[in-house]
């Protein structure tokens, strides 16, 4: 009942459903004070890694643990696996400490992807909150690579402070394009910030898109996604044209461990990207 546009891809990395493949850190780039982007290469030598934007991998930090992290790289660049992670606890912090050349485990890719194919011919609204921009970046690359097939493309991005803005240089490049509308807002303006202040939902009323022919893709904290959907609905976007990416605890990512259940859905397999109308009733219930 949840099967999305993207078929569940058979995981390509790892010798068994629960056994990671070994990759090495090629380089780590500091994005903000707590967020970093890693480029990873297979230990076994060059290898093609195909994924659908929106999918994630399980990353294992030696001896510490394994966590789900979305793929944040360009789907056209298949030789390298890219992840953008926010250091919030033991595993993500161990990943951050990895130096170039050091190894980690990867299983994946898992889950459903963003509806880039469905969105062809329509306007696209991409709304991101905080680290939520990372799982959306691949679909933006994908859309920009086939820009002529889409109508208006709008990126709405909200983050805590100007210092927390991810992919800053890329955002500037995107902002200078004539075929892409980029709006960034921060919760708290600090320093010389001259841009928008306030939550990302405030950007929706004035964003240029045709609500009756729009596909929206949202990723961020659950409250942010709820309010963004409300605003979009307010402008007339139907919930079957809205997609969100959910976060749940995941121990296996192959629907065996049971942790990621959201009603009848396994977020690891039926998600993380869901068409909103299919989960709308559950989104209204506390503590599902």
């Amino acid at each position: 009942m949840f099967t999305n546009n993207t078929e569940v891809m058979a995981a390509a990395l790892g010798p068994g459903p629960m056994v990671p493949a070994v990759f090495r850190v090629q380089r780590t780039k500091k994005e903000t004070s707590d967020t970093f982007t890693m480029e990873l290469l297979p230990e076994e030598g060059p290898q093609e890694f195909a994924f659908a934007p929106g999918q994630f991998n399980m990353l294992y930090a030696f001896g510490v643990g394994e966590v789900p992290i979305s793929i944040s790289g360009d789907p056209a660049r298949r030789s390298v696996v890219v992840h953008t992670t926010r250091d919030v606890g033991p595993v993500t912090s161990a990943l951050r400490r990895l130096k170039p050349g050091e190894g980690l485990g990867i299983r994946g890719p898992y889950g459903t992807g963003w509806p880039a194919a469905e969105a062809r011919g329509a306007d696209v609204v991409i709304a991101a909150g905080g680290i939520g921009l990372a799982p959306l970046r691949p679909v933006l690359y994908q859309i920009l690579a086939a820009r002529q097939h889409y109508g208006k493309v709008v990126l709405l991005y909200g983050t805590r402070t100007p210092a927390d803005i991810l992919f800053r240089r890329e955002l500037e490049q995107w902002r200078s394009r004539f075929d892409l509308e980029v709006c960034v807002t921060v919760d708290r303006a600090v320093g010389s910030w001259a841009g928008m202040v306030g939550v990302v939902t405030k950007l929706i009323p004035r964003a240029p898109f045709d609500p009756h022919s729009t596909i929206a893709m949202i990723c961020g904290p659950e409250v942010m996604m709820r309010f963004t959907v409300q605003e979009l609905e307010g402008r007339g976007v139907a919930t079957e044209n809205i997609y969100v990416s959910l976060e749940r605890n995941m121990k296996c990512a192959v629907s065996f461990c049971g942790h990621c259940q959201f009603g009848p859905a396994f977020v690891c397999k039926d998600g993380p990207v869901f068409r909103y109308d299919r989960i709308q009733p559950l989104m209204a219930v506390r503590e599902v």
Partner: protein
Amino acid sequence: MVNRVVRKNVRRRPGGVAQTAAFAVCGRFGLVRNPAARRLIMSDSDPPGEERFVFECDQLDLLLAALKKHGYRVVGPTVREGAIVYDELRSAADLPVGWSDEQEGGRYRLLKRSDRAHFGYAVGPHSWKQFLHPPVRRLWQASRTQDRLEIVPEKDDPPKTAFLGVRACELHAIQIQDKVFLRGGYSDPSYKARRENAFIVAVNCGHAAGTCFCVSMQCGPKVGAGFDLALTEVVEETRHYFVVQAGSEAGRQILGEIPHREADVSERTAAERIVSRTAEQMGRAMDTTEIKSLLYSNYEHPRWESVAARCLTCGNCTMVCPTCFCTTVEDVTDLSGKHAERWQKWDSCFTTSFSYIHGGSVRPSGYARYRQWMTHKLAAWIDQFGTSGCVGCGRCITWCPVGIDITEEVQAIRSAAPLPARENEENHGNA
């Protein structure tokens, strides 16, 4: 962490009600006469050509010997610490001969029977999932040297195992876990190997416990399919024998190696009568009519508050349930920091850590956790695997320290709920 069943309110020592016969025990709880029971049994009569055989009770050891000769480790029910548990059997004498049980919400106790029945009890705290989906299992080991990380998967070489005494509900539970681990897009190689190495000797139930409700879940007490051999134990004044049915080629081969003969009409009838009598002795029943939409439309029912006020969120129900499959993982390292391992362990949705994501648990309240367990078991499971997650074995009722009863909780929601919208599926129990 919750792998051990907490037993409170349960008397550990075998009860001393020596004169109580099994059927009298059931009678004490009153019979739940379920009209569906009779219908089920009658429509379940053997397809034509299905043969039944007979061997005498004292030949049961020959069956064990034949299984062992074929390299099977035989596991089955045995008495330990006042309960019937599953463990390795050296001989038929290790079975709970002459024992029965008394079960109610939060209560379990063994009783002496007046006969020497080998299978005269209902299911205990163990289920076969401990052999197919072990409580603790190493997934892989990793080693780190200066310039290399290596991950070595666990070599899984499970022993050939014969399960002796698998009840109808338990067969259904195994088939449900097959759907979880073998048919969901990904397949669990460890489960698969264990499953393929299992030989199943099923037993038709001659005694229902006070917490049994397999009839209403369409999962028993008569064994349907999915076994290698199925036995019905017949204890008469002067004779004690088993009526046997072979369900697979492997079963026919093993049977061929022990003395047996074709069952006559009176033996077949005796066996049939035993299982139909058990069906009438169900201690409980669950009304599964449109249960999926009933639960999906009652996420906010006040009954969840009431059950949360009683529930200790101890997770016993999930540990004893033969279909609950959730696991967590644990990472360990040695002191040198060069060696690490990843272990998989049974987990329970009753813990707060189960649903933890950065910032806190998704289901901090007991309300949400009990609701998750029951709604998953009886509703979401149908969407996920095409079958209910409950087989009516009653374990969660018996082993709940406060006696929370899933049949009663469903009834409470049903009686105070608006009628759910109609569903189009026909069957909301187990297919």
